């Protein structure tokens, strides 16, 4: 069972964090925080890591058990079932949501005219197979293309270096509006707090005490990648245009190669990012599936995997009417949904600590 190494946790978690961050969240972030989005990313990664650290403290108390199993001893049976049913639905919703964002992107840019169900079903099928193979294989596969993935996302900003307008540099320190930076911080802390996923997978990890260190390194790497991409996009397009583009990073890649001999290379770079997206959606679905199995008291998550994947595919096709709705959802409700999901372990930690404190107090009175 304990087969996921700390290095695999680092590689998985890094790709998990930067995939949607650079793909879909640069627009909403810049809309709020403008040129000073980089501060929001730094603060947000700090808050996200703090939340993950608290989840890690909860895990350290029972490192060999799943939260979905022992949670009922902390908050009581029915509250636990209700909370975890919500967590399960949020994971399913998030998987469907990210899949929809991704399929919209692929259809608009690379496969115009292809029916959505075809794209979503094929991608969903890959995810279903990945989820069925279990967390250990899934983390191992994250290791496979990690270097290519990171190198390709680092390449995005490098190529624009000759095109940028250096007079915009000053705006990175002068475009200061605290309200917007706070909002941006919330957006990025929601993204970075997603690393709290370790709480659902801890019994699979080897060298558990190194888990948090690895997650912290991954958050650092992902923050660096995200900031590099935000800075490059902002230098190229400025804050107004970046905020109003649906896919700023992609526009940047397409801008670089207009007219150059590398023009047809952008799908090659996108392919590695696509792999990170597959890991992201797959991990959401994996956690949903594992939580289902654990809630029912089963050890094997496999029988639920195809059903969950089918539901994800159908939801992803049918739950939104248009890209405008998706964009509204991304800016208006995604952050709070992710923050709520990540703060569930904190609730358990709080109740567990209160119980331990009360127990000690009672023991003290008895003495």
């Amino acid at each position, binding site marked *: 069972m304990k087969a996921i190494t700390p290095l695999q946790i680092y590689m998985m978690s890094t790709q998990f964090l930067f995939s949607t961050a650079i793909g879909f969240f640069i627009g909403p972030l810049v809309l*709020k925080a403008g040129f000073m989005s980089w501060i929001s990313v730094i603060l947000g990664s700090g808050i996200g890591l703090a939340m993950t650290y608290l989840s890690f403290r909860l895990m350290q108390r029972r490192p060999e058990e799943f939260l979905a199993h022992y949670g009922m001893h902390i908050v009581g049976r029915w509250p636990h079932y209700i909370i975890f049913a919500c967590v399960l639905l949020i994971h399913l*919703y998030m998987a469907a*949501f990210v899949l*929809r964002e991704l399929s919209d992107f692929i259809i608009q840019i690379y496969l115009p005219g292809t029916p959505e169900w075809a794209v979503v079903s094929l991608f969903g099928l890959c995810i279903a197979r990945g989820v069925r193979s279990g967390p250990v294989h899934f983390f191992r596969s994250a290791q496979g293309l990690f270097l290519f993935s990171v190198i390709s996302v680092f390449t995005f900003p490098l190529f624009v270096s000759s095109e940028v307008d250096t007079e915009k540099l000053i705006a990175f320190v002068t475009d200061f509006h*605290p*309200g*917007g930076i*706070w*909002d941006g911080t*919330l957006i990025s802390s929601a993204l970075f707090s997603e690393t709290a996923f370790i709480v659902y997978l801890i019994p699979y990890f080897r060298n558990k005490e190194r888990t948090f260190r690895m997650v912290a390194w991954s958050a650092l790497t992902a923050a660096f990648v995200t900031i590099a991409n935000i800075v490059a996009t902002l230098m190229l397009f400025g804050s107004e245009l970046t905020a109003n583009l649906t896919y700023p990073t992609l526009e940047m890649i397409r801008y670089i190669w207009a007219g150059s001999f590398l023009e047809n290379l952008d799908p090659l770079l996108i392919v590695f990012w696509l792999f990170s997206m597959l890991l992201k959606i797959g991990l959401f679905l994996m956690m949903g599936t594992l939580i*289902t199995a654990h809630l*029912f008291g*089963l050890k*094997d998550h*496999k*029988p*639920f995997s*195809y*059903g*969950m994947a*089918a*539901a994800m595919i*159908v*939801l992803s096709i*049918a*739950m*939104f*009417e248009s890209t405008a*709705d*998706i964009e*509204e*959802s991304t800016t*208006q*409700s995604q*952050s*709070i*949904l992710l923050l*709520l999901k990540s703060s569930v372990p904190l609730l358990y930690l709080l109740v567990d600590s209160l119980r331990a404190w009360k127990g000690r107090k009672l023991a003290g009175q008895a003495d």
Partner: protein
Amino acid sequence: MIAVTIAFVLIAYHESRYLRSHRRSKRTVRLVLGFLTFLWLLASTVVLLHGRFSLGVAVTDLFKPLQQLLFIEE
């Protein structure tokens, strides 16, 4: 709708064969099939109401006020 039902029936058939070949208890089979039924109901409701009711917009509307509470700028 028909495609969704067919997909779920096929999945249910596949999973019940998988469970039987691994000699799982009857309780496990019931739980898995029950959960598949729940997912089928969820998926088919969303498909049937497509165009009149959008789950994504409903979730957005549900969480929007909470997010506006935390955010400073509109």
